[in-house]
């Protein structure tokens, strides 16, 4: 891979810019290993030769944006590998509580960019959370609006305090996160549902909450609870789980 393409690719991955890389893997010997790197706007750079099917490749590449996968495509003698590079998933944790500490570590190992929200300065400290991408010490609804929630974002709400939890839930439900889970026992959740219905939220909206949070693995310690939460997020994102498992 030519230096300028490698530089561009690594920089795109670092900054989270989505790109699609097309590599000729079969065909004329002098073409094998040549690359074309596409940006979202359809522009490209690379060392494909004059005779290569650039326009067809561009159509293939554009169809792959936003998906996290690689496919091979055969055209005549050539075989081309297309790989879509997608920004890492984002995990927003509201509540810098004990469970959040192992949760940040697990999420980081799983490749998530983790952002922690808590207006309480005693909880949200760099010393407790050295691995987060950002610590946002603001009221949850304001913080979530500023950070932004998209289909590549999981939101976990852990404060246990309606003052903090409820605004976060309401804002998150106004968006379309990949996952939205809230900590609290079944009883706590029942009360929460009553409160939120009173505030005008619908059953349909509230059904999107994963609560009680996490897969039921009998977790007791903060780390075990964090593991159950992380497992649930993976299961939902990978399509293995579409409804809250605990009834």
């Amino acid at each position, binding site marked *: *891979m030519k230096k300028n393409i*490698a530089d561009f690719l690594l920089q795109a991955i*670092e900054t989270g810019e989505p790109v699609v890389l097309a590599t000729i*893997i079969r065909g004329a010997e002098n073409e094998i*290993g040549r690359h074309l790197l596409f940006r979202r706007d359809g522009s490209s750079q690379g060392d494909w030769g004059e005779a290569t099917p650039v326009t067809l490749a561009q159509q293939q590449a554009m169809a792959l944006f936003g998906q996290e*996968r690689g496919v*091979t495509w055969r055209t005549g003698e050539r075989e081309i590998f297309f790989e879509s590079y997608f920004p890492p998933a984002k995990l927003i944790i509201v509540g810098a509580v004990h469970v959040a500490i192992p949760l940040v570590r697990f999420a980081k190992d799983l*490749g998530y960019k983790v952002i922690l929200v808590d207006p309480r300065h005693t909880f949200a400290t760099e010393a407790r959370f050295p691995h987060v991408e950002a610590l946002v010490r603001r009221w949850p609804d304001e913080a979530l609006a500023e950070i932004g929630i998209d289909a590549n974002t999981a939101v976990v709400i852990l404060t246990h305090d309606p003052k903090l939890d409820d605004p976060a839930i309401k804002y998150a439900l106004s968006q379309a996160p990949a996952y939205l889970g809230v900590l609290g026992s079944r009883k706590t959740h029942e009360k929460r549902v009553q409160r939120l219905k009173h505030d005008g939220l619908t059953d349909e909206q509230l059904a999107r909450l994963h609560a009680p949070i996490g897969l039921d693995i009998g977790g007791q310690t903060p780390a075990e609870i964090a593991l159950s939460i992380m497992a649930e997020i993976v299961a939902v994102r990978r399509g293995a789980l579409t409804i809250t498992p605990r009834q």
Partner: protein
Amino acid sequence: MHDLLPELQCWRERGLAIALATVVKTWGSSPRPAGAKMAVNAHGEMIGSVSGGCVESAVIEEARQVLQTGKPKLLAFGVSNEQAWEVGLACGGMIEIFVEKLEN
């Protein structure tokens, strides 16, 4: 590739020659999907993976050759391949791996 990035950048800053191996095709039950990657540097150090540990040592050998010649290679491992019996994809799947040098 996100997980390989810090190490890759560190290798590049140190001016080490790097070979990148990418799974480009899979058949049947293979341990890692297309796009899975490993990188090998001039010292033979390895990061990432292209299988569950079944073919990595063979890929390192091929990567060293790619670093020497600068010519990319398309490798195939699977039950129909003689090397697979030695190297062994225990799952019975087949994979193709593209190995190339990253210019620095």
